[in-house]
């Protein structure tokens, strides 16, 4: 396809326009219940951002990592301390710096990836998960010596204006997610992404072709942790509105891993699809439990069933479509398109016969 504007094709631009119209004009005008913003849209955007971070390291660079929640915690608590101790930085400045702090952790714990891969790397990244949470928990400075264990997040103030209503917070999340998603797409399509994918597909071959493993892997871990850090800060400030290390435990890491894999490894839109699925499915299941069975099924049973279904889907996708839901969506689009244009194909066939 021919690029229309810079390197973007017409399709990219229409996709962007549709997404922007939907998220900026349609959603704020049609969705008025606070529940949708506070419980679905805001966490969706935050977790999708974290999943993009996971995509960078796992989907694009092929390194099995399982520490996303640790980096999110690093970002969240960095944000808290920056706003508390360096108020001049402002919200956006703090957000960027907390992302960078998370990235520093990413580099540190990504270093083992130079020597090991697969499950070995997973264990190394588990160290980051447990270490970061422990560090925040044990050193009072990070929590400003708060003994209650749960700290209330400061209000978001950008350029003197408070952003405290659910709708305003939604716009904050939306703006950050949009900018970072576009950036991620650019990186994934450019030489950076090519290097990541070369390392993913065969690292030894990539190295012999002159791709620096050190640079590529460390870069991927840093960028991944940056995304997770920013996502963690948003998650704490816009969704949880509080900070506690327990919120970022290994379960959240697994959740993000599931979003990444079920959504589709190595795709950016897969991050959004996966996050939406993992978030919405339990809501759906609960409402089925309440409305169809009228609470006859215990809530713990429902959450167990949810776990079984997530696990089962993971296995099914690994067997039948390792590229996840993004690929299913792609296939659906192609089959729809071919059905729509099947009449057109008949026409061309008849014209071919005529020319013969």
């Amino acid at each position: 396809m021919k690029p229309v504007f810079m390197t973007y094709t017409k399709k990219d631009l229409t996709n962007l326009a549709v997404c922007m119209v939907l998220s900026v004009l349609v959603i704020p005008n049609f969705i008025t219940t606070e529940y949708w913003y506070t419980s679905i849209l805001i966490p969706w955007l935050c977790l999708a951002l974290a999943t993009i971070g996971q995509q960078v390291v796992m989907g694009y660079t092929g390194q099995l990592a399982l520490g996303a929640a640790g980096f999110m915690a690093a970002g969240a608590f960095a944000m808290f301390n920056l706003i508390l101790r360096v108020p001049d930085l402002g919200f956006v400045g703090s957000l960027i710096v907390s992302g960078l702090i998370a990235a520093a952790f990413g580099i540190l714990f990504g270093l083992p990836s130079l020597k090991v891969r697969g499950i070995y790397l997973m264990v190394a990244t588990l160290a980051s998960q447990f270490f970061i949470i422990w560090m925040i928990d044990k050193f009072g400075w990070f929590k400003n010596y708060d003994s209650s264990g749960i700290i209330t997040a400061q209000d978001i103030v950008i350029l003197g204006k408070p952003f405290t209503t659910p709708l305003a917070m939604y716009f904050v999340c939306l703006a950050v997610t949009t900018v970072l998603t576009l950036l991620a797409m650019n990186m994934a399509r450019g030489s950076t992404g090519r290097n990541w994918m070369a390392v993913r597909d065969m690292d030894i071959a990539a190295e012999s072709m002159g791709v620096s493993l050190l640079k590529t892997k460390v870069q991927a871990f840093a960028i991944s942790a940056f995304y997770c850090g920013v996502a963690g800060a948003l998650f704490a400030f816009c969704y949880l509105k509080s900070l506690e290390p327990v919120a970022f435990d290994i379960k959240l890491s697994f959740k993000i891993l599931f979003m990444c894999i079920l959504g589709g490894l190595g795709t950016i839109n897969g991050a959004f699809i996966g996050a939406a699925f993992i978030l919405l499915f339990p809501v759906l299941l609960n409402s089925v439990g309440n409305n169809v069975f009228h609470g006859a099924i215990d809530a713990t049973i429902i959450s167990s069933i949810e776990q079984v279904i997530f696990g089962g889907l993971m296995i099914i996708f690994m067997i039948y479509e390792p590229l996840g839901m993004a690929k299913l969506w792609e296939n659906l689009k192609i089959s729809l398109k071919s059905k729509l244009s099947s009449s057109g194909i008949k026409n061309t066939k008849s014209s071919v016969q005529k020319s013969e």
Partner: protein
Amino acid sequence: MVDELLFFMEVLVGGLLAGTMYSLVALGFVLIFKASATFNFSQGAMVFFSVLAFCGFMQDFNIPFVLAFILAALLMVVVGLCTERLVLRPLMNASEDTVLMATIGLGYVLEGLAQAAWGVEVRRLDLGIGDFPVPWIADNLKLFISALDIFAGLVAALMIIGLSLLFKFTKIGLGLRAVADDAGAASSIGIPLKHIMLLVWSAAGVVALVAGCMWGARAGVQFALVDLALKALPVLIIGGFSSIPGAIIGGLIIGATEKVLEVYIGPFFGGAIEGWAPYVLAIFFLLYRPEGLFGEKIIRRV
């Protein structure tokens, strides 16, 4: 001075014995890895699933101890059968990472099923062996060592000896090693791949049940067992994924270091460093000896 030394010995021995508990979990991983080069992430979930089933049989249906154990073991064979049929066979030619992710999914399924069937509350498991110091050792050696720890150590030793002998000297063991080396070549000379997989997953299930009994008797049968089982991963990295003796040595190293660090260095940092110390130890091992102490050297080609 003598008191200090005695205290150190007590910490060390306690750590070593606690380490055998990790070894028991790690053993299940090794069994499957050795026979199929598959990393089974769901081993922790299998520990939880099997021991919860065991408790469920005993406490909900009032089945006697031995019969309940046999039933739970049979259940693990069924789990192994289903896993082989529904997960592993369709993924026969998939890459290692794909199979690994599928086993993460399998772990979720097992955890969910266990909780749906037997509830989420913590259950007590009484093996008839108390988790308190043995009086004889306390009197004569002045060391306080739990009877449960000693029992777990003995069980681990027995299982490891038994499994090592099985792998080394029986025809089945030879078949297992052949399949691990090259599944395609092994099946082409007539080794029944299906049976081997079934056997190995059932064995791993039974090992998980034994490990679960030990952990359950100590900490109660609860969901936290799954997280505890994660600690078997650093054990494997230190010992090597394909070595049965490695699993026990790795467990001992992790158990001892963890306890010694916790007691002597932990207080300076506010404690609870045993949550991450094993993983950091594993990272250092990875940097110097990625294949572990007893693992086979990994050679990768383009």
